[in-house]
């Protein structure tokens, strides 16, 4: 039983004509989001990155791991000695930068999505339990959250990666270990507020179980802040993955990652600026798009969160 939407008094057999039917909160929020052209543009850009990541094997002009030492540090096509078949030039091992950027989008988006999905699920469940059950459950979860928040994020992730060793699975684990606390805090706060509302009281009076109240009553009503927080946290996770890969602690070669591509290019900054700078533009474009889209989502779904 979720919070009842206002129903018009005259709604026999199918209700009012479409034009007069009151708009649902979801539709209203989506309409607000669509009206914000900048956020909509950013959302489209994210979609383009997602398509690039999915279709990487079809659209990448070359094998990202295939090096040709004769093309070592070859400049982009628009510069002297550049070639249009290697649009963005080649790195120190003669690998096509554009193809590596395309495959790198897979790593960034995949890690971002996996980390945020697992963290938001754990954080939401923990936040619901802490906020609704209270008592010892709340104390334990809140103390754990406080403790994890006591570590600067990068220090925590670097510490864990140092101990676990680099690699895709470990980077996901290292980020999830801390990331869940952010959605947990938001959900706990929202649950504490919702716990006292009438619809929850009503569910309790009807004899619903605690699990039912948390998952079927409260959760649907607090999903919008979870969504907003998850979106803007994803931008942060992508930067974290790139930073760890830059330090050599993230995804390992030959898998291309934007962060490790910048690190490789740093060695040849004086002779070939494009190797280090181009992957950075990709990171900036994706993170910027996610940040702009998340601002739009925040304004549309939860105006109370506006800064």
């Amino acid at each position, binding site marked *: 039983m979720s919070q009842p939407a206002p129903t018009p008094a005259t709604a026999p057999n199918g209700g009012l004509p479409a034009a007069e039917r009151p708009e649902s909160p979801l539709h209203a929020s989506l309409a607000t989001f669509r009206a914000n052209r900048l956020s909509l543009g950013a959302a489209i850009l994210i979609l383009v990155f997602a398509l690039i990541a999915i279709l990487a094997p079809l659209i990448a002009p070359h094998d990202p791991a295939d090096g040709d030492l004769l093309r070592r540090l070859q400049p982009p096509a628009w510069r002297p000695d550049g070639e249009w078949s290697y649009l963005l030039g080649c790195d120190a091992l003669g690998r096509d930068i554009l193809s590596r950027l395309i495959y790198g989008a897979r790593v960034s988006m995949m890690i971002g999505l996996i980390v945020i999905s697992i963290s938001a699920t754990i954080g939401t469940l923990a936040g619901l339990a802490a906020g609704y059950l209270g008592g010892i459950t709340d104390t334990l979860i809140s103390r754990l959250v406080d403790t994890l928040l006591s*570590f*600067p994020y*990068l220090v925590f992730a*670097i510490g864990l990666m140092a101990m676990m*060793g680099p690699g895709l699975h470990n980077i996901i684990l290292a980020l999830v270990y801390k990331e869940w606390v952010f959605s947990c805090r938001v959900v706990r706060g929202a649950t504490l507020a919702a716990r006292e509302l009438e619809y929850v009281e009503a569910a309790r009076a009807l004899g619903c179980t605690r699990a039912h109240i948390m998952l079927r009553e409260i959760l649907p009503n607090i999903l919008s802040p979870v969504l907003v927080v998850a979106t803007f946290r994803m931008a942060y996770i992508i930067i974290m993955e790139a930073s760890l890969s830059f330090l050599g*602690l993230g995804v390992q070669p030959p898998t291309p990652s934007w962060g490790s591509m*910048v690190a490789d290019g740093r060695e040849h900054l004086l002779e070939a600026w494009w190797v280090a*700078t181009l992957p*950075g533009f990709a990171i900036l474009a994706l993170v910027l798009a996610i940040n702009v889209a998340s601002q739009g989502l925040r304004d549309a779904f939860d105006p109370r969160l506006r800064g």
Partner: protein
Amino acid sequence: MSYSRIAERFLQLVPVLFGVSVIVFLMITLTPGDPVEIMLADQRATEEQIAALRRDMGLDKPLAERFFHFLVNAVQGDFGLSFFHRRPVIDVIAERLPATIELTLASMLVAIMVAIPLGVMAAVRRDTWLDRACTVGGLFGVSMPGFWFGILLILLFAVELRLLPVGGRLGYDYEVARITGMVLIDSLLAGRLDSFRNALAHIALPALTLGLPSAALLMRVTRASMVEVLAADYITFAEAKGLSRLRVLARHALKNALIPTVTVAAIETGALLGGNMIVETVFGWPGLGRLVVESIFARNYPLVQAAVLLYALTYVLLNFVADILYTTLNPRVRL
């Protein structure tokens, strides 16, 4: 805020500090694989050597006993020997720490000097091109990966314009006697203005790299708080009294609007410590952050463990200071 409230708030830190120690202890203990074998992986150690190291690290003892020893030793500043340097970990950290503190303070100075004027101007000229430019700049600031921004600055100011050095802390031709370990301060104390100028040129790019993204955050906070203050009745009253706009801003608005900025700046200083690892690596800055990254690859775990604990403790204490500052500056807030 009374001393008893501060003491009470400080006592609330105890469980958090305990939790931090547990996590740092577990980081090395519960990770998959045998830490001793991982540490000696490349060194063809004999069974006896592995057993001896395991004994030295106390890995043959029960978990609870090991944690107790870790805690007792940590309180005394004893984190064991740095394998690589063959010296106590705490000595190696103490040697590198001033460089990191110096860079963090310089970065925070950059952040504050950029954020406060821009945040105030954006609020005063709300919804103008300046406000929008600040918003866009702020978005770029929080979206830019620090390591890449550092590389762009190197390309522009060091490679193209040749205005600033690529990395390091002080030119080879300069030498400053170590007093505080912070080269800028030591140069001034020794009256060496040439070294001071050289150190300033070296710290400029890393401080900008680390400070500007923080400036983006502080600017947003300053702007939001200034907008709120400017709408308050006492500002209207001050203007109605005939005070000049500048006087109203400087004497009445800014004082109150800066409370959240100061608080966030204290918290952000702790967060900068994490960013230091990246920026120190990019600029070859010989601080604690770079030492930690080097130690990871050298499998120098005791040093990594001690540094992570130190970073976390500093972060907790800076958050505590932020709480106290916020309450002291704003008496309406009670912890």
